[in-house]
């Protein structure tokens, strides 16, 4: 027993060492011949232009890079989540992603029942799983860093344009991810211009899809002088961006790069869900996914950033933004996860 454990441990060490060497070369080594991975998306579709689509992109990329079979289980209604996770688990997938925090409850049920397979939850911290299963890894994003970056650019832009010096953000609800985005935004804007006023309001839309609610909030903010509107509300937030377009002020997208929405888009706060899927899959593939911990994605490891910047923004501002990004990455700028607003 002890002996086999030792061998296993030694093998794992070897694998890890080999993975490090192979990883730097960029080539995938084949540790486990029949490794396969699956993702379970959340409500919405595979063509939702954000969360689910990014996760699926990550799945396809991981499959190509590592040369492993992958499969997507699509959740079309709340009733699908549990059977999807169970189907993936009983089909023997070695690594299964639950995409979205609504999976927490079901991961808590399913993961302990399949101890030889690994589970990961995107936006699901391990604290949401009371059973604390050994084979679960949480994937969390430092949204406050993305908020800081776009807030900084918003502050710079307001300064350059002159005027009332007001920027704003529209959140759907006080969910942790949204609070982090909005807190970072305030700190970033103040960094660019300490005298700036930052309006932060919630639309109180639990469905995350009622565009009218977010539009109304954004219109009120613009009436109070907001020059840049940052949407932090998923589908609801598209209403905020359309308000920005109508009133000819800047808009900032969230999660995915939403620059395609039009010329009014300043940039987007980007959360690289696809990258997280690839990275975690590679780790599990190399046998280096330990479980029972949260894997953070930050500016430092490239999991968080900003999207395409409007061509109307001068090069000097982008250079300043990149300098800030480097300072966040090497820890020179400390950003609070939440500030009062």
């Amino acid at each position, binding site marked *: 027993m002890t002996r086999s454990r030792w061998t296993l441990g030694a093998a794992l060490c070897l694998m890890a060492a080999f993975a490090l060497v192979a990883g730097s070369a960029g080539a995938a080594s084949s540790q486990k011949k029949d490794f396969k991975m699956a993702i379970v998306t959340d409500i919405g579709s595979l063509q939702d232009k954000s969360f689910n689509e990014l996760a699926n992109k990550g799945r396809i990329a991981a499959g190509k890079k590592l040369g492993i079979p992958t499969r997507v289980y699509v959740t079309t209604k709340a009733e*699908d989540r549990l059977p999807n996770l169970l189907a993936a688990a009983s089909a023997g997938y070695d690594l299964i992603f639950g995409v979205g925090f609504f999976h927490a409850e079901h991961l808590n049920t399913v993961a302990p029942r399949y101890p030889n397979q690994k589970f990961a939850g995107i936006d699901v911290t391990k604290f949401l799983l009371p059973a604390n299963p050994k084979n679960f890894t949480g994937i969390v994003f430092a949204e406050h860093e993305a908020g800081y970056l776009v807030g900084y650019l918003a502050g710079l832009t307001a300064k350059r344009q002159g005027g009332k010096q007001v920027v704003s953000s529209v959140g759907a609800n006080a969910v942790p991810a949204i609070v982090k985005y909005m807190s970072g935004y305030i700190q970033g804007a103040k960094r660019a211009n300490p005298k700036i006023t930052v309006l932060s309001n919630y639309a109180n839309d639990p469905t995350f899809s009622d565009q009218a609610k977010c539009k109304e909030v954004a219109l009120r903010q613009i009436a109070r002088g907001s020059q840049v509107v940052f949407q932090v509300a998923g589908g609801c937030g598209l209403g905020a961006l359309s308000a920005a377009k109508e009133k000819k002020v800047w808009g900032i997208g969230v999660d995915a790069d939403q620059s395609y929405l039009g010329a009014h888009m300043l940039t987007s706060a980007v959360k690289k869900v696809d990258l997280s899927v690839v990275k975690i899959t590679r780790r599990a593939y190399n046998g280096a996914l330990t479980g029972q911990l949260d894997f953070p994605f930050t500016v430092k490891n490239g999991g968080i950033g900003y999207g395409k910047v409007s061509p109307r923004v001068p090069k000097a501002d982008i250079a300043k933004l990149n300098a800030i990004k480097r300072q966040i990455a090497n820890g020179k700028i400390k950003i609070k996860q939440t500030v009062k607003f």
Partner: protein
Amino acid sequence: MTTVMQKGLLPPEEPDSTGALGRYLLLQKAGGLIAPLLTAALAFLIGGVVVFATTKSIPDTLQTYRAIFDGAGLDWFLPWNTCTDPCTPAIKLQQTLLVWVPLVLTGIAVAFAFRCGLFNIGGQGQYLAGAIVAVIVAAELPLHVDLAPVPLVLLCMLAAMGAAAGLAAVAGFLKATVGAHEVITTIMLNWTVIWVGTYLFGFEGPLQNDQAKEIPASNTIDDGSKLTQAGVWGHPDLQGLPWISLGVAIASLVVYSLLLNRTTLGFQVRAVGYNPEAARYGGISVARSYVLAMGIAGSFAGLAGALDVLGWKFRLDTTDFAGSIGFIGIAVALLGRNTALGIGLAALLFAALQTGTSTRNLDPEIFPPELATPLTIIIQGLIVLFVGADIVILLLLRRLRRRQVSAAA
């Protein structure tokens, strides 16, 4: 009353039954079993064109349909199909039946009102009202009172049925008193329920769960109120179908049939459905029938909500309010011709379609998973479309028959 007003007083064969609904019911009677079968077959045929457009070959199209059939677990019924443990077809069939249960009940909810001449679009709201009340009773009550599992489960179900019945009766009452159309009122009530539920269990809502404030969901129900305690059918590692749910669904079909065909109330409801004026003339209180029919219809949908919560959901989150089980119930009732057997079979068709085309059960090698969900919606939509158009099929059949008769003469 019963003895006086036996069948025949309001003969359903009466050709001058007024209103589109009356004519429709008549024609449906004439069409028998042929029209619904034709409807479903036609929908699958046109759905096949869509599959053909993606797979680009006829054998692949047939194979896709075979995969949907297998994906729904229907191959479990084939006598020559033996499977070893764990039995995959059984696991898939159990998922189909898990959807079948609420579809049967919401189908009855639509059909019962339909037989009274009311179009109950509120199945979804009534289902959700039942689910909300069941989850509240099952999660909150055991914290205050100590109850044995059986009374607790019964109480949950009764409370859910009562709430849904009350909700639906509001629409019936408005129709009976001020003539507000039930299509409008039930749709409005759907949204009332959705927003009440979202408020209750949403962020910082009064009944949001105590464990994780990041998640907009209710508390999980008490272990004693879980129907799975009494045993499930299917693989224990996978979400099982509680025997109780299956039994209640089948019993509901029987109750529906008996209530409608063998009781005074059922007779009154049908009489009002055929012709409210004649029913009124015959001494039936039309207003009372409207309220009662809607109330009873609603209680079936509410029971569906309770069974889902107690049977396998165990809690509700805000995304549960975006479901569509109550709306598919309309299609079930229409295709099933408002008869108990028809509803049972139509519910099986829709449940099998949902499970069979889901990405977890449809083999990704045969049909691309990105298109599986749209395929479900396409076939479902086509069936609903043709169910609406089955009157056209019936007219065609009748014309054909007439031509044959005249040719023979």
